[in-house]
């Protein structure tokens, strides 16, 4: 069962006859022992209480406090004659909900912010929609929602509107979170996966595979000890620094999430109609990630990241952009990992550390371990 309930305080009106609505909530939510049940999705008092005591407390901002069906927002730094809006949306389903270095909440903020940032835009606002499974512990929900609030505050991008739904037990995986982000694009910024040109340098902001390995290390039936944490992070300030270093010189930006670096580069090669040559020795991989991948039969090139970006930049500004990346805390290990070439077949090739060459292909199907 589902019930439509905007993350606003609208239903208060239903209870308005009570002289003092706050007295109706004399017993606060039992975060420690409570669980999501159907009532939380029914649009009544329980839903109201959940929103006020949990979501509003975590996300608190002026727009959300208004309690209306939608948020009315200012557009700072927006030139209505030349400026453009960027909008991106992302659904987040992850098991387990908590993993070293983050949780589904921080991920839902970073994932969407990064999608906006990869267009070269400055993200301004986020919306969040929650599908909660009956039975989800309120303590877990609180942890997730507070982590979301903290991530949004750290990024300086408020969550201004939202929605919750509850589905029957067994019909969800604890919680699914969809977030949408809106940002503004400065005049003259044109970033697109179609803009790669032969000769462009391929820059990577840091080590690959951290997020995927951190999540795998917690997955049921596979728990292993690792010091690796997810790299989940908001990349918009890194992007701003890169664009400032070389206005017009940054052609493509993309965050290699699902499918990993290999899949992202193949997407760009196809979109732009170019080929690429990578240098395996230049691609940063943490030894722990390499070890875990070795053990599990996975290739770090195909493992997900949540706080890394790939930039294809004009060769003459490559060094400048690289320096700007390395000067930013999220780009300290940035490296130039290869070059764009003209290739009608759009192959991504790699010179291996071993001295040979190979194709770095699309991921086909789900990444699965080899048995031998």
């Amino acid at each position, binding site marked *: 069962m589902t019930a439509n309930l905007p993350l606003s305080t609208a239903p208060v009106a239903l209870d308005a006859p009570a002289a003092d609505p706050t007295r109706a909530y004399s017993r606060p939510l039992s975060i420690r022992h409570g669980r999501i049940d159907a009532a939380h999705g029914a649009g009544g008092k329980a839903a109201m209480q959940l929103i006020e005591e949990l979501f509003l407390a975590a996300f608190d901002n002026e727009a959300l406090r208004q309690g209306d069906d939608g948020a009315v927002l200012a557009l700072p730094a927006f030139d209505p004659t030349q400026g453009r809006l960027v909008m991106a949306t992302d659904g987040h389903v992850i098991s387990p909900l908590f993993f070293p270095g983050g949780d589904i909440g921080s991920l839902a903020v970073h994932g969407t912010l990064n999608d906006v940032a990869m267009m070269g835009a400055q993200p301004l606002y986020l919306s969040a929609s929650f599908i909660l499974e009956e039975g989800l512990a309120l303590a877990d929900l609180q942890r997730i929602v507070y982590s979301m609030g903290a991530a949004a505050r750290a990024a300086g991008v408020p969550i201004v509107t939202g929605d919750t739904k509850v589905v029957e037990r067994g019909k969800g995986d604890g919680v699914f979170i969809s977030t949408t982000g809106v940002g503004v694009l400065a005049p003259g910024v044109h970033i697109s996966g179609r803009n790669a040109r032969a000769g462009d340098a391929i820059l990577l902001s840091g080590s690959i595979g951290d997020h995927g390995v951190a999540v795998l290390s917690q997955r049921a039936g596979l728990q292993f000890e690792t010091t690796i944490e997810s790299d989940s992070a908001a990349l918009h300030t890194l992007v701003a620094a890169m664009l400032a270093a070389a206005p017009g010189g940054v052609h493509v930006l993309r965050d290699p999430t699902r499918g990993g670096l290999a899949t992202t580069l193949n997407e760009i090669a196809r979109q732009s109609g170019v080929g690429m040559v990578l240098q395996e020795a230049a691609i940063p991989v943490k030894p722990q990630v390499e070890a875990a991948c070795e053990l599990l039969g996975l290739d770090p090139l195909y493992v997900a990241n949540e706080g890394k970006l790939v930039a294809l930049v004009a060769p003459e500004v490559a060094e400048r952009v690289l320096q700007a990346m390395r000067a930013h805390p999220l780009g300290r290990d940035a490296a130039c990992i290869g070059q764009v*070439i003209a290739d009608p077949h759009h192959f991504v090739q790699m010179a291996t*550390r071993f001295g040979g060459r190979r194709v770095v292909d699309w991921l086909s*199907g789900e990444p699965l371990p*080899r*048995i*031998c």
Partner: protein
Amino acid sequence: MKYVDEFRDGQLARRIAAAIHDEVGERHYHFMEFCGGHTHAISRYGVQDLLPPNVHMVHGPGCPVCVLPIGRIDQAIRLALERGAIVCAYGDTLRVPASDGLSLAKAKARGGDIRMVYSAADALAVARAHPEREVVFFAIGFETTTPPTALVILEAQREGLPNFSVLCCHVLTPAAITHILQSPEVREFGTVPLDGFIGPAHVSIVIGTEPYEHFSEEYRKPVVIAGFEPLDVMQAILMLVRQVNEGRAQVENEFTRAVTREGNQRAQGIVSQVFELRAQFEWRGLGTVPYSALQIRERFAAFDAERRFGLTYRPVPDNKACECGAILRGVKRPTDCKIFGTVCTPEHPVGSCMVSSEGACAAHYTYGRFRDIPIVHAGAGVEENVS
């Protein structure tokens, strides 16, 4: 990474490559790496690029997933969909195409309870956790994965687990290598142009080097047992070239850090306690090969899914356009197949060689297909630009 990087060192590779270049004569050398693990190493590290142009590597049938016949996967799927069993399988078996457009992964989407496990022991744990359900371990692989399967059957018997059984599809390496050289199809294909074999790594840890001796003597083909790291493969190629040049046909062991002549006798003991030879077994791409697989002994019938569920085997022929049989025997190359890279791709594999990344065709498609096409080669400038 300690203890692995040492076997992937580019400088050492160049040194061995130089030795191979010094050693080779005018003739062409065709070596088959039997194992998918070697195919994977050769493709992933670009070993071919370090070899002289007259040294050719032929990818063999040693990819346990590729050689699994459709009929066996059909059995596993039916156990999940029709008999309501929890089927536990190794990861890369999930995608192998079976009859009716199904695979284990697709059967899962249709409601089959199919679970990926990393080991046979994980399957046993699933059985313990769900005493009310039938749990079947879909046991595939060569001699490497056989001992763990034997162990869980012994353990299940010891615990008296009433809901656990094994669908045994374990196959044997020496039988397959021999079959490549002596099967009736070889006459049809003409001579198999193979000058030597890189013998299995992990399989040989279990069975030792001794089982290859008869083969190498009878068919006059050198065999070098090698580890799965790219330097192991390079060294093995050098050893094979030397054997060919000196007219020798012996079993040599490059993988001395793990393989002995006798192998792991304790593992062998457990395997023969639980399993016995199967009179015949169908291999995808190779057809029916006598005494090339194992079945569970009568004594452990309770844990044999075939007996427990009264399964009968229904063979499903491979696609007619498929050249897998010839490719697996080294008679044809993946690019000689009409459907390679067009109808048959890793996304939609038609033949066995395209099924897993270790298969001959999939490895070539995924890692090496740029070699088939004249391509703008990465210029010298690339290295200079990349710091």
